[in-house]
């Protein structure tokens, strides 16, 4: 394999979740579920960066991008196709908050396929587990790196930087096939063009049924976190500005 040297091209799989947008109004219906009213769904923010990175790699080195989604909705898969993915696979399974189940389902489907690279998002914006990518890599016995901030194909390998704490980064080289999870800001995701949407209409979304019996966790209860609340300043904008200035003076800020 001589990927990146003008030789063979890259076969990339991207994981994309249709997730609740954090801008949504989140209200509890009962202890185990959220009121669907007021919820907005979209492609998980980190996965926007993942699909963009995959398409860029394909544009640079040639190859194919396949997007995989676990769940019953197709909007996010359609969006990825419109951005430039070639194929989509839908696994119509509700995995709730169990990242282990999600990873197992994807593993079942992906182990039947040939690939050089799997790209996931670092984290889902709703569940915040930051697990599915690393679990999948581990289940497939693939080298991996999380929180990736740049990718370069070099001599049939992947040279990436990954984010550490406090602004530091680490540079590592991964043998292919491998998996990366991308951190936000790795690129500037493109907007979906009208042309893209038109072209995506003819692209197929393949449905693959998977059964996963094993469960590791169960949601017991959801609730609003107990927090100490700030003292609220109210009034018109002008009144608020005046009160703020008083506070600044009192605290010696100005």
């Amino acid at each position: 394999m001589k990927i990146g040297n003008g030789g063979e091209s890259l076969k990339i799989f991207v994981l994309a979740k249709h997730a609740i947008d954090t801008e949504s109004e989140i209200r509890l219906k009962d202890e185990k579920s959220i009121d669907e009213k007021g919820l907005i769904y979209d492609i998980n923010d980190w996965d926007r960066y993942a699909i963009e990175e995959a398409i860029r790699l394909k544009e640079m080195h040639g190859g194919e991008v396949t997007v995989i989604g676990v769940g019953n909705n197709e909007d996010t898969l359609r969006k990825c196709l419109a951005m430039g993915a070639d194929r989509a696979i839908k696994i119509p399974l509700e995995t709730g908050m169990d990242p282990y189940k999600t990873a197992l389902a994807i593993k079942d489907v992906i182990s039947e396929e040939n690939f050089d690279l799997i790209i996931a998002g670092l984290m889902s914006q709703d569940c915040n587990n930051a697990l599915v990518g690393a679990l999948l890599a581990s289940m497939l016995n693939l080298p991996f790196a999380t929180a990736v901030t740049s990718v370069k194909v070099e001599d049939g390998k992947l040279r990436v930087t990954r984010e550490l704490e406090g602004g530091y980064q680490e540079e590592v080289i991964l043998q292919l096939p491998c998996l990366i999870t991308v951190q936000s800001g790795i690129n500037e995701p493109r907007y979906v063009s009208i042309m893209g949407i038109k072209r995506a209409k003819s692209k197929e979304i393949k449905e693959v049924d998977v059964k996963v019996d094993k469960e590791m966790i169960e949601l017991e209860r959801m609730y609003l976190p107990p927090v100490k609340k700030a003292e609220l300043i109210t009034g018109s904008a002008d009144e608020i500005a005046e009160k703020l200035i008083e506070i600044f003076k009192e605290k010696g800020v100005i």
Partner: protein
Amino acid sequence: MRVFAVAEIRMNELDPVSVELLNLANEIKADGSAEAIVLGKDVSEFANELSKYSDKVWKIENDSLENYNPEIYADVLIQLFQKEKPDVILFPNSSRGAELAPLISTRLDAPIVTDIVGLDFSNGVKAKRYIFQGKLMVDILVKDADTYVFTVRQGVFKEGKEIGGEIVDVKIEPTVSPARQFISIIEPEVGEVDIAQADIIVSVGRGIEDESNIELAEELAKALGGVVAGSRPVIDSGWLPKDRQVGISGKTVKPKLYLALGISGAFQHIMGMKDSELIIAVNKDPEAPIFGVAQYGIVGDIFEIVPALIEKLNQIKS
């Protein structure tokens, strides 16, 4: 229960989260033990420090452990775990723990929950964590297993006591030739303004909506004699340079005034600014977690409040 805590050495220093893991281990161990693991090339000094808070410290020194490599580290840890059979394994929820914990979980077929802020073994195994970046909290019931893996949020388990334990030197050689190779550490970029030195910070989040609105924050910062910083999405979008980012993957700041404008208050952001002397937040969402760390809060639109404030400040000056 035997509770193992994998200590974190970063930039040749013991991260304080390591002691927090041991505090949690001591809390849940019942009549078992809190055992620390420290790996690296030369970690005696850290083992000594950790022994204050643990019943036992497993010290694993090896030249191949000098630079972090998940495959080598996991291989060495698995060798120890297969012999010692821990009931619970704790990692920090760090860039490193986020790679190692799932690897260990898969190899041991152990359930895993990440970024936990509470753990209770009194009636089944229950872990507490946030979802929606701090907006909701969940209790998670973990299915029965021989071993459990958790990554623990930093800054939560600060209380604990010194117990004093022994240090055990173990020789473990890695048995894998890794497919991932460490190359180098890259230092943070240095810009013209060091926000960590500023007394007054006007910090903007996704609520600023557009690059052109950064000017508004600049104007306010000027009127206050401060500097502009931002949350991650603002930096990701390229509206402010990387060295202006506040948070765990950016800078930690402690100004006299931190004015948070349109920032929701995700944990990763709060870790970088919670020790500021005075925190004031403006956010249109009354439930935004930022109001949990601010002394004063304004539930409102930054595009109404900020211009009014700039005007009043400029009046005072002239």
